[in-house]
Each structure stands twice: as structure tokens, then as C-alpha cells.
């Protein structure tokens, strides 16, 4: 098995799985019917993308591994998503800020992944980017509405951005598997996306009349499997059925 490729696929897919779980958990809890539906539609897109990635990863792993095994039967430290996507829905401003900070990255990332020499990853990227461009519009639009809205919405979304900012630098951190895969022209060199990312984010924050956080201290660890306390709780929900009724099928 090509362990580096396997890990690399998981590091992309797990972001979509965990963020998809977060957004899906809002079903019936969105602030209005329309935003509720938007959040769950985004979740559905992300889960669709995850299936393509995990099916590919399962093929590489062999041993009759299925996409469900990968999604439901790993332990917390085997998930390789970035810390940003596992952060909780403290309030709607956090949901939107988390989505915005991730979507902006996700779009740039997929744009680069389209050029991967791995034809499966490139195909998934070409498909997904169309969906993610809608996600990005939605979350950027809401950033402007909340930031340039009432005093309360402004304060709440500023706080969310301040808190979540600390998880943004990890998006551009390379693991050992990344470095090997970049050399083989399979992986995206995320370090090259960083300037573009922060410029895009800053532009929207300014339009939203929000301040760009000055904090220079950043958290990382998710890509190596070291997570914040929130992931365990999320996984206990996500994995409940498979853990309680092993091998159950729909």
C-alpha cells in the first residue's frame, strides 16, 4: 500500500467529513428555514465529496476495506482533519466564520488539486470545486451581512473570527506525507496558497467592516491526529450506530 497517498487522501477527505458532520448537525436548528437548508445542503455536498475520496482510499488500502470502515471505524487520533473544521457551533456567527475560513481555503486548494498528476484526485477536485464555489459565495455573503449588520451581529462575528483565527495557519502546514506527495506532483503545495488565502480573507473582512486579527500565535496538530477536545464528542455522535450495531447496513 502507498501509505503516503493513503494518508494524503484522508487528510483531504477528513476535512470534508468533519465539517459535513458539523453542518449536518444543524438540521432543524438553523436560524431560519433557508439557512437551515443551506447548511445541510453544504453538508450533503461535503459528504458526497467524502465518499469519492474514501472509495479511492479504500481501494488503495485493499483487504476489503470499505468507505464506511474509513468513515466510521477509526479512532480519534487516526483522523487527519485540520482543527478548524472540528470547532463547535458556539453560535451562528461561529458556524459562518468557520465555514468562511474553510471555504476560502477549500476553493484555492481544489483549484490547485485539479492539476494533480493523480487522475482520481484531479477528477474529484474538478467536480467538487463547482459545489465549493457556491459554499464560498454563501459564507462570504453571510460574513458581510453579519459584520455589516447590527451591533450585536458585528460583535458576535468579530469574536468568532478572533477565536477561529488561531486555527487558520495550520491549513498551510505540511506533513511528511504532504512533502513526499508534492514531490511526486500528486499533492498541492499548500505553502504556496497562503498569501492568496490571507489576502482574500482580509478583503472580505474589510467589506464586512471587521478587523483582521493581529494574533501571531497559531494552533496546529490535526493533520498529525492531535485534536482539540471537540473531535471526540463529534465522533461519538458520528460513529454511534456502527459502534452500537457493528456492521449494520442501511
Amino acid at each position, binding site marked *: 500500500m502507498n501509505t503516503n497517498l493513503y494518508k494524503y487522501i484522508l487528510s483531504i477527505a477528513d476535512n470534508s467529513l468533519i465539517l459535513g458532520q458539523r453542518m449536518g448537525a444543524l438540521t432543524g436548528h438553523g436560524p431560519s428555514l433557508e439557512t437551515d437548508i443551506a447548511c445541510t445542503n453544504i453538508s450533503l*455536498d461535503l459528504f458526497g465529496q467524502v465518499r469519492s475520496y474514501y472509495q479511492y482510499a479504500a481501494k488503495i488500502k485493499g483487504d476489503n476495506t470499505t468507505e464506511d470502515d474509513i468513515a466510521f471505524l477509526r479512532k480519534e487520533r487516526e483522523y487527519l482533519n485540520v482543527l478548524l473544521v472540528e470547532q463547535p457551533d458556539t453560535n451562528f456567527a461561529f458556524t459562518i466564520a468557520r465555514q468562511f475560513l474553510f471555504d476560502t481555503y477549500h476553493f484555492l486548494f481544489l483549484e490547485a488539486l485539479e492539476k494533480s498528476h493523480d487522475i482520481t484526485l484531479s477528477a474529484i477536485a474538478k467536480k467538487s470545486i463547482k459545489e465549493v464555489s457556491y459554499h464560498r459565495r454563501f459564507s462570504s455573503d453571510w460574513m458581510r451581512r453579519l459584520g455589516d449588520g447590527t451591533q450585536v451581529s458585528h460583535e458576535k462575528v468579530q469574536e468568532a473570527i478572533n477565536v477561529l483565527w488561531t486555527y487558520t495557519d495550520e491549513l498551510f502546514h505540511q506533513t511528511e506525507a504532504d512533502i513526499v506527495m508534492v514531490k511526486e506532483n500528486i499533492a498541492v503545495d499548500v505553502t504556496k496558497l497562503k498569501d492568496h488565502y490571507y489576502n482574500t480573507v482580509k478583503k472580505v473582512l474589510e467589506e464586512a467592516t471587521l478587523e483582521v486579527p493581529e494574533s501571531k500565535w497559531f494552533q496546529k496538530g490535526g493533520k498529525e491526529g492531535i485534536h482539540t477536545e471537540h473531535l471526540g464528542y463529534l465522533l461519538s455522535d458520528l460513529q454511534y450506530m456502527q459502534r452500537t450495531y457493528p456492521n449494520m447496513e442501511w
Partner: protein
Amino acid sequence: MVNAEQNIDKQLIPILEQVSDPEIPVLSIMDMGVVRSAVLLSDVVEVEITPTYSGCPAMDVIGDDIKKALKEAGFNSKIELILTPAWTTDWITPKGRKALEDYGIAAPLNAEADKDVLLNGKRLVKCTNCGSQNTRMISQFGSTACKAQFQCDDCLEPFDYFKCLK
């Protein structure tokens, strides 16, 4: 032609035209443009379909429905889901666009106009009930991943708009 890369055996077309999108029953999967190839090889029909959206839950049902329709016509089949080239709303046929409109779903505009209605609040989508262009977006996301929600300010009818996907 946008659909030039389709490769479908002529004898299979009438069979595949009977299969419809489970979420938009008036629309055949052929008019939707999701069937990319269907070829009879020895005694098995190999069909390639492509999803409209990655998470589209209709794809499994569509795969099963194709199998069933082919079986009834005497063919065994194998269905494969392909991602590339990625589906675009350009592949919906004129007949398909008409079927959407008749069903109450506004057909996708071109990419530029789509951006204008979804982002800049322009009134370009025609109401499927009264035909007025005095319509506005309620939400960028609608009842399924492929649609946005609109409302007509003349007849007040709420309706779905099929988003442009390029």
C-alpha cells in the same frame, strides 16, 4: 455540441429515456445529461453515469432504475459512476429545460446572469407560474443541492431555480 462526448448505442436510447430523475419525475435522465455512455458489450450493457452534485442521493436510485429498465428490455447491465468530465447544466437538453419549466422549476441561466441573480439581486429569472421577471432570490440553497429558492413579486408564487453549474 456540448454533448458530443456521449457514446450511447442507438437501440438503448428509448429504454434509457424511460428512466427519470426520482426527484424531478418529469425529467428523463437522458434529457438531464447524466448518462455519459451506454454500450452493449457481448451480453452486458455497460453504462456510465455522472452525478449532478457529488452528494446527490438520487444517483443510487438512478443506477438501480437503469438496471431495472434494461433488465425488462432483456439486457443485463453494469453501472459505473464517473466523475470526469464533471456534469454541467449545459448538458440539460432543450427538451429537458422545457420539462423543468413546465414542472415549475426555472431552468438555469447562463453563468454570468446566474451570478447576477444569486449575488447581486438582479431580477432575471422568469417566474414559472406567471412569467414575470419581477422575481427575487430567497435563498441560494433550495430543496435539493442543485436548486435555489425564488419568489415572484407579482403573483407571489415561490418557486425553485435550477442553479447554473459550469
